[in-house]
Protein backbone atom coordinates (compact mmCIF):
# COMPACT_ATOMS: atom_id res chain seq x y z
CA UNK A 1 0.00 0.00 0.00
CA UNK A 2 1.33 3.40 -0.90
CA UNK A 3 -1.64 5.71 -1.04
CA UNK A 4 -1.95 9.42 -0.44
CA UNK A 5 -4.75 10.73 1.76
CA UNK A 6 -7.01 11.68 -1.13
CA UNK A 7 -6.52 8.27 -2.77
CA UNK A 8 -7.53 6.63 0.52
CA UNK A 9 -10.64 8.80 0.86
CA UNK A 10 -11.75 7.96 -2.67
CA UNK A 11 -10.94 4.24 -2.41
CA UNK A 12 -12.79 4.05 0.91
CA UNK A 13 -15.90 5.61 -0.58
CA UNK A 14 -15.84 3.20 -3.53
CA UNK A 15 -15.14 0.20 -1.27
CA UNK A 16 -11.97 -0.47 -3.20
CA UNK A 17 -8.52 -1.35 -1.91
CA UNK A 18 -6.60 0.98 -4.15
CA UNK A 19 -7.12 3.73 -6.65
CA UNK A 20 -4.63 5.31 -9.03
CA UNK A 21 -4.18 8.98 -9.92
CA UNK A 22 -5.47 9.72 -13.41
CA UNK A 23 -8.18 7.08 -13.21
CA UNK A 24 -11.65 8.36 -14.07
CA UNK A 25 -14.29 7.22 -11.64
CA UNK A 26 -17.91 7.84 -10.90
CA UNK A 27 -18.02 8.96 -7.31
CA UNK A 28 -21.13 8.99 -5.10
CA UNK A 29 -21.87 12.46 -3.74
CA UNK A 30 -22.69 12.50 -0.02
CA UNK A 31 -23.30 16.25 0.30
CA UNK A 32 -24.18 18.76 -2.37
CA UNK A 33 -24.46 22.51 -1.92
CA UNK A 34 -26.27 24.60 -4.53
CA UNK A 35 -26.28 28.37 -4.08
CA UNK A 36 -28.60 31.05 -5.38
CA UNK A 37 -25.92 32.25 -7.81
CA UNK A 38 -26.37 29.23 -10.08
CA UNK A 39 -29.39 27.64 -8.43
CA UNK A 40 -31.89 29.02 -10.93
CA UNK A 41 -29.89 27.67 -13.86
CA UNK A 42 -29.60 24.27 -12.20
CA UNK A 43 -33.27 23.99 -11.30
CA UNK A 44 -34.61 25.32 -14.59
CA UNK A 45 -32.31 22.95 -16.51
CA UNK A 46 -33.63 20.09 -14.41
CA UNK A 47 -37.21 21.13 -15.16
CA UNK A 48 -36.44 21.39 -18.88
CA UNK A 49 -35.02 17.89 -18.81
CA UNK A 50 -38.45 16.81 -17.60
CA UNK A 51 -37.11 15.50 -14.31
CA UNK A 52 -39.40 15.93 -11.35
CA UNK A 53 -37.58 14.01 -8.71
CA UNK A 54 -34.01 13.80 -7.47
CA UNK A 55 -32.12 11.13 -5.62
CA UNK A 56 -31.84 11.52 -1.85
CA UNK A 57 -32.86 15.15 -1.42
CA UNK A 58 -31.70 14.97 2.20
CA UNK A 59 -28.06 15.19 1.07
CA UNK A 60 -28.70 18.48 -0.74
CA UNK A 61 -28.33 21.90 0.84
CA UNK A 62 -29.58 24.97 -0.98
CA UNK A 63 -28.05 28.24 0.17
CA UNK A 64 -29.47 31.66 -0.60
CA UNK A 65 -26.25 33.49 0.04
CA UNK A 66 -25.26 35.75 -2.85
CA UNK A 67 -28.32 37.94 -2.44
CA UNK A 68 -29.64 37.77 1.12
CA UNK A 69 -31.97 39.38 1.87
CA UNK A 70 -32.88 39.91 -1.79
CA UNK A 71 -31.53 43.29 -2.88
CA UNK A 72 -33.31 43.53 -6.22
CA UNK A 73 -36.63 42.47 -7.67
CA UNK A 74 -34.75 40.11 -9.95
CA UNK A 75 -33.06 38.47 -6.96
CA UNK A 76 -36.37 38.24 -5.12
CA UNK A 77 -37.99 36.58 -8.12
CA UNK A 78 -35.14 34.09 -8.32
CA UNK A 79 -35.60 33.23 -4.66
CA UNK A 80 -39.30 32.64 -5.24
CA UNK A 81 -38.39 30.24 -8.04
CA UNK A 82 -35.74 28.46 -5.96
CA UNK A 83 -38.18 28.11 -3.07
CA UNK A 84 -40.80 26.57 -5.39
CA UNK A 85 -38.27 24.18 -6.87
CA UNK A 86 -37.01 23.08 -3.45
CA UNK A 87 -40.59 22.31 -2.42
CA UNK A 88 -41.19 20.43 -5.68
CA UNK A 89 -38.01 18.36 -5.31
CA UNK A 90 -38.50 17.84 -1.57
CA UNK A 91 -35.28 19.59 -0.59
CA UNK A 92 -35.67 20.60 3.03
CA UNK A 93 -32.20 21.95 3.83
CA UNK A 94 -32.67 25.45 2.53
CA UNK A 95 -31.01 28.54 3.99
CA UNK A 96 -34.11 30.70 4.20
CA UNK A 97 -33.85 34.00 6.02
CA UNK A 98 -33.63 33.19 9.70
CA UNK A 99 -31.45 30.12 9.21
CA UNK A 100 -29.42 31.73 6.48
CA UNK A 101 -25.71 31.84 5.96
CA UNK A 102 -23.01 31.53 3.37
CA UNK A 103 -23.50 28.13 1.74
CA UNK A 104 -20.00 26.91 2.55
CA UNK A 105 -20.50 27.76 6.20
CA UNK A 106 -23.89 26.00 6.30
CA UNK A 107 -22.17 22.96 4.76
CA UNK A 108 -19.80 22.66 7.73
CA UNK A 109 -22.37 23.45 10.41
CA UNK A 110 -23.77 20.07 11.37
CA UNK A 111 -23.99 18.76 7.80
CA UNK A 112 -20.80 17.51 6.15
CA UNK A 113 -18.86 14.83 8.04
CA UNK A 114 -15.25 13.68 7.79
CA UNK A 115 -14.52 11.24 4.94
CA UNK A 116 -17.61 12.22 3.00
CA UNK A 117 -17.63 13.32 -0.64
CA UNK A 118 -18.89 16.90 -0.41
CA UNK A 119 -19.20 19.25 -3.37
CA UNK A 120 -20.73 22.63 -4.07
CA UNK A 121 -21.53 24.82 -7.06
CA UNK A 122 -18.94 27.39 -6.08
CA UNK A 123 -15.16 27.58 -6.22
CA UNK A 124 -14.63 27.68 -2.48
CA UNK A 125 -16.33 24.33 -1.93
CA UNK A 126 -12.76 23.18 -1.31
CA UNK A 127 -13.45 24.38 2.23
CA UNK A 128 -15.09 21.20 3.50
CA UNK A 129 -11.68 19.54 3.13
CA UNK A 130 -10.87 21.22 6.45
CA UNK A 131 -13.21 18.70 8.08
CA UNK A 132 -11.47 15.74 6.48
CA UNK A 133 -13.93 15.43 3.59
CA UNK A 134 -12.96 15.12 -0.08
CA UNK A 135 -14.46 18.30 -1.41
CA UNK A 136 -14.22 20.58 -4.40
CA UNK A 137 -16.23 22.99 -6.50
CA UNK A 138 -18.42 21.86 -9.37
CA UNK A 139 -20.58 23.48 -12.00
CA UNK A 140 -24.26 23.22 -12.93
CA UNK A 141 -23.92 20.16 -15.19
CA UNK A 142 -22.07 18.30 -12.45
CA UNK A 143 -24.68 19.33 -9.87
CA UNK A 144 -27.43 17.97 -12.09
CA UNK A 145 -25.47 14.75 -12.48
CA UNK A 146 -25.26 14.48 -8.68
CA UNK A 147 -28.97 15.24 -8.26
CA UNK A 148 -30.13 12.79 -10.91
CA UNK A 149 -27.63 9.92 -10.75
CA UNK A 150 -26.18 10.45 -7.27
CA UNK A 151 -22.69 10.48 -8.79
CA UNK A 152 -20.28 12.77 -10.55
CA UNK A 153 -17.32 11.83 -12.67
CA UNK A 154 -13.93 12.59 -11.21
CA UNK A 155 -10.38 12.17 -12.42
CA UNK A 156 -8.43 10.97 -9.39
CA UNK A 157 -5.98 13.77 -8.68
CA UNK A 158 -2.28 13.45 -8.09
CA UNK A 159 -1.17 14.84 -4.75
CA UNK A 160 1.15 17.49 -3.41
CA UNK A 161 2.16 17.37 0.23
CA UNK A 162 2.87 20.29 2.50
CA UNK A 163 4.14 19.67 6.00
CA UNK A 164 3.80 22.61 8.38
CA UNK A 165 5.68 22.47 11.66
CA UNK A 166 6.27 24.84 14.56
CA UNK A 167 4.05 27.30 16.41
CA UNK A 168 2.66 30.33 14.66
CA UNK A 169 4.04 33.52 16.25
CA UNK A 170 1.61 35.74 18.19
CA UNK A 171 -0.46 37.81 15.77
CA UNK A 172 0.19 35.40 12.90
CA UNK A 173 -2.80 33.17 12.24
CA UNK A 174 -4.29 30.59 9.89
CA UNK A 175 -5.10 33.24 7.25
CA UNK A 176 -1.45 34.26 7.05
CA UNK A 177 -0.49 30.60 6.73
CA UNK A 178 -3.14 30.09 4.03
CA UNK A 179 -1.65 32.95 2.00
CA UNK A 180 1.85 31.52 2.44
CA UNK A 181 0.64 28.15 1.13
CA UNK A 182 -0.47 29.65 -2.20
CA UNK A 183 3.12 30.04 -3.36
CA UNK A 184 4.87 27.04 -1.85
CA UNK A 185 5.05 25.46 -5.30
CA UNK A 186 5.20 27.01 -8.76
CA UNK A 187 1.80 28.08 -10.03
CA UNK A 188 1.50 25.20 -12.50
CA UNK A 189 2.14 22.58 -9.84
CA UNK A 190 -1.20 23.16 -8.11
CA UNK A 191 -3.45 22.72 -11.13
CA UNK A 192 -5.78 19.73 -10.72
CA UNK A 193 -3.81 18.44 -7.74
CA UNK A 194 -4.94 17.53 -4.25
CA UNK A 195 -2.89 19.40 -1.66
CA UNK A 196 -2.40 17.29 1.44
CA UNK A 197 -1.61 19.54 4.39
CA UNK A 198 -0.27 17.96 7.55
CA UNK A 199 2.03 18.66 10.48
CA UNK A 200 1.99 19.77 14.08
CA UNK A 201 0.93 23.33 13.20
CA UNK A 202 -2.18 21.98 11.49
CA UNK A 203 -2.90 19.68 14.44
CA UNK A 204 -2.91 22.67 16.80
CA UNK A 205 -5.19 24.78 14.58
CA UNK A 206 -8.86 24.87 15.43
CA UNK A 207 -11.30 23.76 12.74
CA UNK A 208 -12.08 27.43 12.01
CA UNK A 209 -8.44 27.88 11.03
CA UNK A 210 -8.24 24.71 8.94
CA UNK A 211 -11.33 25.83 7.06
CA UNK A 212 -9.56 29.08 6.11
CA UNK A 213 -6.71 27.10 4.56
CA UNK A 214 -8.94 24.65 2.68
CA UNK A 215 -11.03 27.58 1.43
CA UNK A 216 -8.04 29.60 0.23
CA UNK A 217 -6.39 26.66 -1.57
CA UNK A 218 -8.95 27.17 -4.37
CA UNK A 219 -7.00 30.32 -5.21
CA UNK A 220 -3.90 28.24 -5.92
CA UNK A 221 -5.94 26.50 -8.68
CA UNK A 222 -5.70 23.20 -6.84
CA UNK A 223 -8.55 20.71 -7.00
CA UNK A 224 -8.79 20.40 -3.25
CA UNK A 225 -7.05 20.52 0.09
CA UNK A 226 -7.10 17.38 2.19
CA UNK A 227 -6.63 17.24 5.92
CA UNK A 228 -6.55 14.29 8.28
CA UNK A 229 -9.73 14.15 10.36
CA UNK A 230 -8.74 14.17 14.03
CA UNK A 231 -10.73 14.25 17.27
CA UNK A 232 -11.31 18.00 16.72
CA UNK A 233 -12.86 17.39 13.31
CA UNK A 234 -15.18 14.70 14.61
CA UNK A 235 -16.15 16.82 17.62
CA UNK A 236 -16.81 19.87 15.41
CA UNK A 237 -19.10 17.94 13.10
CA UNK A 238 -20.76 15.93 15.83
CA UNK A 239 -19.91 12.73 13.98
CA UNK A 240 -18.95 9.65 15.99
CA UNK A 241 -15.18 9.24 16.07
CA UNK A 242 -13.84 6.84 13.47
CA UNK A 243 -10.37 5.57 12.75
CA UNK A 244 -7.91 8.22 11.68
CA UNK A 245 -7.12 7.86 8.00
CA UNK A 246 -3.73 9.15 6.96
CA UNK A 247 -1.50 8.71 3.97
CA UNK A 248 0.89 5.78 3.81
CA UNK A 249 4.49 6.61 4.64
CA UNK A 250 5.55 5.53 1.15
CA UNK A 251 2.76 7.40 -0.66
CA UNK A 252 3.79 9.01 -3.94
CA UNK A 253 3.57 12.78 -4.30
CA UNK A 254 4.26 14.98 -7.30
CA UNK A 255 6.09 17.31 -4.96
CA UNK A 256 6.57 17.88 -1.25
CA UNK A 257 7.40 20.97 0.76
CA UNK A 258 8.07 21.94 4.34
CA UNK A 259 6.91 25.17 5.92
CA UNK A 260 8.34 26.46 9.19
CA UNK A 261 5.44 28.24 10.87
CA UNK A 262 7.74 29.96 13.36
CA UNK A 263 9.20 32.02 10.50
CA UNK A 264 5.88 33.40 9.27
CA UNK A 265 4.82 37.01 9.66
CA UNK A 266 1.54 38.80 8.87
CA UNK A 267 0.99 38.59 5.12
CA UNK A 268 -1.27 40.31 2.63
CA UNK A 269 -2.45 39.52 -0.87
CA UNK A 270 -1.63 42.76 -2.67
CA UNK A 271 -3.81 44.18 -5.46
CA UNK A 272 -4.99 42.74 -7.83
CA UNK A 273 -4.12 39.08 -7.48
CA UNK A 274 -4.64 36.67 -4.59
CA UNK A 275 -1.29 35.03 -5.24
CA UNK A 276 0.47 38.38 -5.06
CA UNK A 277 1.38 37.60 -1.45
CA UNK A 278 3.96 39.75 0.33
CA UNK A 279 4.74 40.67 3.93
CA UNK A 280 2.32 43.20 5.37
CA UNK A 281 5.28 45.40 6.32
CA UNK A 282 5.76 46.54 2.69
CA UNK A 283 2.31 48.15 2.76
CA UNK A 284 2.50 49.63 6.24
CA UNK A 285 0.94 53.07 6.47
CA UNK A 286 -1.26 52.86 3.37
CA UNK A 287 -4.50 54.67 4.14
CA UNK A 288 -7.59 52.44 4.38
CA UNK A 289 -11.17 53.54 3.60
CA UNK A 290 -13.04 50.33 4.32
CA UNK A 291 -12.36 47.22 6.31
CA UNK A 292 -14.39 44.09 5.65
CA UNK A 293 -14.40 41.20 8.11
CA UNK A 294 -16.51 38.28 6.95
CA UNK A 295 -17.00 35.78 4.09
CA UNK A 296 -16.79 31.99 3.93
CA UNK A 297 -13.05 32.36 4.40
CA UNK A 298 -12.97 34.42 7.58
CA UNK A 299 -16.44 35.05 8.96
CA UNK A 300 -16.35 32.53 11.77
CA UNK A 301 -16.22 32.92 15.53
CA UNK A 302 -12.43 32.75 15.75
CA UNK A 303 -12.13 35.61 13.24
CA UNK A 304 -14.68 37.78 15.02
CA UNK A 305 -12.90 37.06 18.30
CA UNK A 306 -9.61 38.20 16.78
CA UNK A 307 -11.22 41.42 15.60
CA UNK A 308 -12.76 42.02 19.03
CA UNK A 309 -9.41 41.40 20.70
CA UNK A 310 -7.91 44.30 18.75
CA UNK A 311 -10.91 46.62 18.99
CA UNK A 312 -12.22 46.02 22.53
CA UNK A 313 -12.73 49.35 24.29
CA UNK A 314 -11.43 51.28 21.29
CA UNK A 315 -12.89 53.08 18.29
CA UNK A 316 -12.58 52.59 14.55
CA UNK A 317 -10.40 55.37 13.08
CA UNK A 318 -12.16 58.48 11.85
CA UNK A 319 -12.66 58.27 8.09
CA UNK A 320 -12.49 54.48 8.02
CA UNK A 321 -15.55 52.24 8.00
CA UNK A 322 -15.72 48.73 9.35
CA UNK A 323 -18.17 46.15 8.04
CA UNK A 324 -18.52 42.86 9.86
CA UNK A 325 -20.48 39.97 8.37
CA UNK A 326 -20.72 36.76 10.39
CA UNK A 327 -20.62 33.77 8.03
CA UNK A 328 -24.00 32.47 9.18
CA UNK A 329 -26.91 33.21 11.44
CA UNK A 330 -25.52 30.59 13.83
CA UNK A 331 -22.16 32.36 13.98
CA UNK A 332 -23.93 35.71 14.45
CA UNK A 333 -26.04 34.34 17.28
CA UNK A 334 -23.06 32.78 19.04
CA UNK A 335 -20.93 35.91 18.59
CA UNK A 336 -23.78 37.97 20.05
CA UNK A 337 -24.13 35.62 23.01
CA UNK A 338 -20.40 35.92 23.72
CA UNK A 339 -20.52 39.72 23.58
CA UNK A 340 -18.29 39.89 20.51
CA UNK A 341 -20.88 41.63 18.35
CA UNK A 342 -21.47 44.21 21.10
CA UNK A 343 -17.73 44.88 21.38
CA UNK A 344 -17.41 45.38 17.64
CA UNK A 345 -20.48 47.62 17.44
CA UNK A 346 -19.23 49.77 20.31
CA UNK A 347 -16.00 50.18 18.37
CA UNK A 348 -18.03 51.48 15.43
CA UNK A 349 -18.56 48.40 13.26
CA UNK A 350 -21.64 47.95 11.11
CA UNK A 351 -22.93 44.39 11.32
CA UNK A 352 -24.56 43.11 8.12
CA UNK A 353 -26.74 40.09 7.38
CA UNK A 354 -24.79 36.88 6.85
CA UNK A 355 -24.20 36.54 3.12
CA UNK A 356 -21.49 36.79 0.48
CA UNK A 357 -22.36 40.49 -0.09
CA UNK A 358 -19.34 42.73 -0.82
CA UNK A 359 -16.94 39.79 -1.15
CA UNK A 360 -18.74 38.72 -4.29
CA UNK A 361 -19.35 42.31 -5.39
CA UNK A 362 -23.05 41.86 -4.63
CA UNK A 363 -25.37 44.03 -2.59
CA UNK A 364 -24.28 46.48 0.05
CA UNK A 365 -20.76 47.27 1.18
CA UNK A 366 -19.07 48.06 -2.14
CA UNK A 367 -16.06 50.37 -2.46
CA UNK A 368 -15.80 53.43 -4.64
CA UNK A 369 -13.28 55.02 -6.99
CA UNK A 370 -9.83 55.46 -5.53
CA UNK A 371 -10.70 53.64 -2.32
CA UNK A 372 -8.62 51.09 -0.48
CA UNK A 373 -10.11 48.12 1.36
CA UNK A 374 -8.50 45.67 3.74
CA UNK A 375 -10.57 42.52 3.64
CA UNK A 376 -10.54 39.06 5.16
CA UNK A 377 -12.10 37.58 2.02
CA UNK A 378 -10.58 35.30 -0.60
CA UNK A 379 -10.41 37.37 -3.80
CA UNK A 380 -8.98 40.78 -4.58
CA UNK A 381 -9.35 40.94 -8.36
CA UNK A 382 -9.75 44.38 -9.81
CA UNK A 383 -13.39 45.40 -9.40
CA UNK A 384 -14.23 42.41 -7.23
CA UNK A 385 -15.71 44.48 -4.38
CA UNK A 386 -16.97 47.43 -6.38
CA UNK A 387 -15.02 50.06 -8.32
CA UNK A 388 -12.43 48.98 -10.88
CA UNK A 389 -10.36 51.86 -9.59
CA UNK A 390 -9.94 50.53 -6.06
CA UNK A 391 -7.35 48.45 -4.21
CA UNK A 392 -8.16 45.38 -2.13
CA UNK A 393 -5.66 43.86 0.29
CA UNK A 394 -6.48 40.43 1.76
CA UNK A 395 -5.36 39.49 5.24
CA UNK A 396 -6.36 38.04 8.58
CA UNK A 397 -9.05 39.34 10.90
CA UNK A 398 -6.26 40.64 13.17
CA UNK A 399 -4.79 42.56 10.26
CA UNK A 400 -8.18 43.87 9.16
CA UNK A 401 -9.11 45.00 12.67
CA UNK A 402 -5.72 46.68 13.08
CA UNK A 403 -6.37 48.67 9.89
CA UNK A 404 -9.83 49.63 11.14
CA UNK A 405 -8.39 50.88 14.41
CA UNK A 406 -5.59 53.00 12.96
CA UNK A 407 -7.06 53.87 9.55
CA UNK A 408 -4.04 52.55 7.74
CA UNK A 409 -2.35 49.21 7.13
CA UNK A 410 -0.86 48.23 10.46
CA UNK A 411 1.04 45.22 11.75
CA UNK A 412 -1.39 43.67 14.24
CA UNK A 413 1.52 42.47 16.35
CA UNK A 414 2.06 46.08 17.42
CA UNK A 415 -1.41 46.05 18.98
CA UNK A 416 -1.31 42.63 20.63
CA UNK A 417 0.45 42.10 23.90
Amino acid at each position, binding site marked *: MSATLVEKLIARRLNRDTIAPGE*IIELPVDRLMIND*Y*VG*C*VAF*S*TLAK*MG*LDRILRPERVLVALDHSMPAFSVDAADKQVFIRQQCARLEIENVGFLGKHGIGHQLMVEDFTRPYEIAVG*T*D*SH*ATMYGGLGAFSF*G*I*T*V*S*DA*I*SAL*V*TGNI*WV*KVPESLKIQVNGSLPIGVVAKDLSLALLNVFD*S*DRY*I*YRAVEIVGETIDTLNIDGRLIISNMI*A*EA*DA*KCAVFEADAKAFAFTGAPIQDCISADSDAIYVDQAYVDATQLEPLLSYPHSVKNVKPLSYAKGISVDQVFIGSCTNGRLEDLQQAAEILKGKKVAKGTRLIVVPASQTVAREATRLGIIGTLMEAGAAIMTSSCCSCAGHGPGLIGNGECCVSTTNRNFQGRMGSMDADIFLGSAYTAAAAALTGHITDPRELLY
Partner: protein
Amino acid sequence: MQEMDAAAMGNWVFEDLEPRAEGMQGGFKLLGFDIVIAGKNFGCGNKSVEHPMAALIGAGVRLVIAESFSRYNYRNAINLTLPVLTCPGIRQFAHMGDRISANLLSGEIINMTSNQTIQGDGLSEFALKIIASGGLLEHIMARAKR
Protein backbone atom coordinates in the same frame (compact mmCIF):
# COMPACT_ATOMS: atom_id res chain seq x y z
CA MET B 1 -26.22 34.18 -13.29
CA GLN B 2 -28.26 33.67 -16.40
CA GLU B 3 -28.93 30.55 -18.40
CA MET B 4 -26.30 29.82 -20.98
CA ASP B 5 -26.92 30.90 -24.52
CA ALA B 6 -23.80 29.66 -26.29
CA ALA B 7 -24.56 31.40 -29.57
CA ALA B 8 -25.22 34.77 -27.93
CA MET B 9 -22.07 34.57 -25.81
CA GLY B 10 -20.07 33.32 -28.77
CA ASN B 11 -20.74 36.57 -30.60
CA TRP B 12 -18.15 38.36 -28.50
CA VAL B 13 -15.47 35.71 -28.04
CA PHE B 14 -11.83 36.92 -28.37
CA GLU B 15 -13.03 40.42 -29.16
CA ASP B 16 -10.16 41.89 -27.12
CA LEU B 17 -7.57 39.51 -28.53
CA GLU B 18 -8.26 39.53 -32.25
CA PRO B 19 -8.38 43.02 -33.79
CA ARG B 20 -10.43 41.74 -36.72
CA ALA B 21 -13.19 40.68 -34.29
CA GLU B 22 -13.25 43.86 -32.25
CA GLY B 23 -16.64 45.51 -31.92
CA MET B 24 -18.13 43.12 -34.44
CA GLN B 25 -20.93 40.79 -33.46
CA GLY B 26 -19.91 37.24 -34.35
CA GLY B 27 -16.57 38.64 -35.52
CA PHE B 28 -14.40 35.75 -34.38
CA LYS B 29 -16.73 33.13 -35.84
CA LEU B 30 -16.66 34.87 -39.20
CA LEU B 31 -12.86 34.47 -39.32
CA GLY B 32 -13.47 30.73 -39.57
CA PHE B 33 -11.03 29.46 -36.95
CA ASP B 34 -12.12 26.23 -35.29
CA ILE B 35 -9.06 25.23 -33.25
CA VAL B 36 -7.67 27.28 -30.37
CA ILE B 37 -4.02 26.84 -29.39
CA ALA B 38 -3.34 28.11 -25.90
CA GLY B 39 -0.70 28.43 -23.21
CA LYS B 40 -0.66 27.40 -19.57
CA ASN B 41 -3.71 27.25 -17.29
CA PHE B 42 -6.15 27.79 -20.15
CA GLY B 43 -9.32 29.47 -18.93
CA CYS B 44 -7.48 30.67 -15.84
CA GLY B 45 -8.42 30.56 -12.27
CA ASN B 46 -10.92 28.58 -10.40
CA LYS B 47 -14.39 29.64 -11.33
CA SER B 48 -17.37 27.36 -11.07
CA VAL B 49 -19.21 28.57 -14.17
CA GLU B 50 -19.51 26.85 -17.54
CA HIS B 51 -20.09 29.96 -19.61
CA PRO B 52 -16.54 30.48 -20.97
CA MET B 53 -16.44 27.07 -22.65
CA ALA B 54 -20.02 27.44 -23.87
CA ALA B 55 -19.03 30.76 -25.45
CA LEU B 56 -16.15 29.10 -27.32
CA ILE B 57 -18.54 26.51 -28.70
CA GLY B 58 -20.88 29.33 -29.69
CA ALA B 59 -18.03 30.96 -31.58
CA GLY B 60 -17.46 27.84 -33.66
CA VAL B 61 -14.46 26.45 -31.78
CA ARG B 62 -14.30 22.66 -32.12
CA LEU B 63 -11.01 21.82 -30.37
CA VAL B 64 -8.72 23.48 -27.82
CA ILE B 65 -5.12 22.35 -27.44
CA ALA B 66 -3.29 23.97 -24.53
CA GLU B 67 -0.04 23.62 -22.61
CA SER B 68 -2.29 23.05 -19.58
CA PHE B 69 -5.88 23.70 -18.52
CA SER B 70 -7.43 25.08 -15.37
CA ARG B 71 -9.45 22.25 -13.89
CA TYR B 72 -12.88 23.82 -14.23
CA ASN B 73 -12.41 24.67 -17.86
CA TYR B 74 -11.02 21.25 -18.76
CA ARG B 75 -13.96 19.60 -17.07
CA ASN B 76 -16.58 22.03 -18.35
CA ALA B 77 -15.31 21.72 -21.92
CA ILE B 78 -15.83 17.94 -21.83
CA ASN B 79 -19.21 18.27 -20.11
CA LEU B 80 -20.29 20.66 -22.88
CA THR B 81 -18.85 18.55 -25.79
CA LEU B 82 -15.79 20.65 -26.58
CA PRO B 83 -12.75 18.34 -27.03
CA VAL B 84 -9.63 19.49 -25.18
CA LEU B 85 -6.10 18.15 -25.45
CA THR B 86 -3.25 18.95 -23.10
CA CYS B 87 0.04 19.20 -24.96
CA PRO B 88 3.15 20.81 -23.47
CA GLY B 89 5.07 22.51 -26.29
CA ILE B 90 2.01 23.17 -28.45
CA ARG B 91 2.62 26.93 -28.60
CA GLN B 92 5.89 26.43 -30.41
CA PHE B 93 4.41 23.68 -32.56
CA ALA B 94 1.41 25.49 -34.03
CA HIS B 95 0.90 29.02 -35.31
CA MET B 96 -2.05 31.06 -36.46
CA GLY B 97 -3.45 29.78 -39.71
CA ASP B 98 -1.82 26.31 -39.55
CA ARG B 99 -3.97 23.33 -40.39
CA ILE B 100 -4.07 20.85 -37.51
CA SER B 101 -5.31 17.28 -37.31
CA ALA B 102 -5.62 15.53 -33.95
CA ASN B 103 -6.50 12.07 -32.71
CA LEU B 104 -8.60 12.74 -29.61
CA LEU B 105 -8.05 9.29 -28.12
CA SER B 106 -4.33 8.81 -28.74
CA GLY B 107 -3.46 12.49 -28.36
CA GLU B 108 -1.36 12.54 -31.53
CA ILE B 109 -1.40 16.00 -33.10
CA ILE B 110 -0.29 16.61 -36.68
CA ASN B 111 0.55 20.03 -38.06
CA MET B 112 -0.39 19.58 -41.71
CA THR B 113 1.13 22.94 -42.62
CA SER B 114 4.60 22.17 -41.26
CA ASN B 115 4.33 18.37 -41.61
CA GLN B 116 5.29 17.81 -37.99
CA THR B 117 3.83 15.60 -35.29
CA ILE B 118 3.65 16.09 -31.53
CA GLN B 119 2.25 13.88 -28.80
CA GLY B 120 -0.36 15.30 -26.43
CA ASP B 121 -2.44 13.65 -23.72
CA GLY B 122 -5.42 11.93 -25.31
CA LEU B 123 -8.90 12.15 -23.87
CA SER B 124 -10.07 9.20 -21.80
CA GLU B 125 -12.70 6.91 -23.28
CA PHE B 126 -15.05 8.17 -20.58
CA ALA B 127 -14.60 11.78 -21.67
CA LEU B 128 -15.09 10.83 -25.32
CA LYS B 129 -18.26 9.00 -24.37
CA ILE B 130 -19.64 12.16 -22.76
CA ILE B 131 -18.73 14.20 -25.82
CA ALA B 132 -20.22 11.61 -28.18
CA SER B 133 -23.43 11.56 -26.12
CA GLY B 134 -23.88 15.28 -26.76
CA GLY B 135 -22.65 16.42 -23.35
CA LEU B 136 -22.97 15.41 -19.73
CA LEU B 137 -26.66 16.23 -19.46
CA GLU B 138 -27.53 14.20 -22.56
CA HIS B 139 -25.32 11.41 -21.24
CA ILE B 140 -27.28 11.41 -17.97
CA MET B 141 -30.62 11.49 -19.77
CA ALA B 142 -29.65 8.64 -22.07
CA ARG B 143 -28.71 6.57 -19.04
CA ALA B 144 -31.84 7.56 -17.13
CA LYS B 145 -33.98 6.34 -20.01
CA ARG B 146 -32.22 2.99 -20.27
